[in-house]
């Protein structure tokens, strides 16, 4: 029997989450492109039009979920690529926490932006 040979943590759930977010993003990314390039054209963007979309709670919720899943999927993908490349030890920890910090900044900034359109008060 072959030994377990993998760069990933045995029993880890991140592998599964990468697939779950992938299935969600396939649909939502295609929708995002279609809505903002084919239904509405990118060169006709105005604050008022973006605001009108984001004031709908269903659209706002979808975009927040899109932000969270895309951030996780993208940043976890970068981390996996670096681990596959041979990143180990202290460097791996430094990279991991740098990516976590970058993700948090992106999420905060993304939510602040969505709130600016939706008219919600942001406390950070």
């Amino acid at each position, binding site marked *: *029997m*072959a*030994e377990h*040979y993998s*760069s990933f943590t045995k029993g880890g759930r991140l592998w599964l989450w990468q*697939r779950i977010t*992938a*299935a969600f*993003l*396939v649909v939502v*990314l*295609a929708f995002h*492109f279609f809505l903002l*390039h*084919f239904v509405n*054209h*990118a*060169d006709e*963007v*105005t*604050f*008022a039009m*973006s605001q009108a979309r984001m004031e709908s709670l269903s659209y706002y919720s979808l975009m927040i979920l899109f*932000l969270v899943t*895309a*951030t996780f999927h*993208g*940043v976890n*993908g*970068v981390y996996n*690529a670096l681990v*596959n*490349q*041979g990143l180990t030890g202290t460097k791996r920890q430094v990279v991991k926490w740098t990516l976590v910090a*970058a993700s948090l900044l*992106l999420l905060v*900034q*993304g939510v*602040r*932006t969505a709130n*600016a*359109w939706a*008219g919600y008060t942001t406390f950070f």
Partner: protein
Amino acid sequence: MSQSYNRGLIEDFGRWREFSAGMWAWVFHKFTGWVLVGYLFTHIAVLSTAIPASSQDAAVLAANGDIYTETIVALESLLVVRILEVGLLAVAVFHILNGLRLLLVDLGIGLESQDKSFYASLILTGAITVASVPTFLAGAF
């Protein structure tokens, strides 16, 4: 007795001449992934101009003279941005189609057709990208 197979460094791009279709699919998926995550950070940074715009005067917003609208309009007026957007579409479509292929492979579906589904992803990406060029470049000239 257990046997192990040491694959060495997993990502050895120096062996690219030996790559099979599956390896190319993996390299392209990785490359398009890097582009998309880089774009995600840039995208949120550009869209963040909506934050100062939201506190501008109603008259300025009504006249589309706010910093968000002006930033997007200025970017979209550049031909290079329009061309980069076509590139972004190609990258996103390939990542989506090859991602679907990977999800099916993970589920054990179509394992015998992995090569064919990779070629299909490439052809479909090319077709969708070419068909989208008129929409993406409209008004750029």
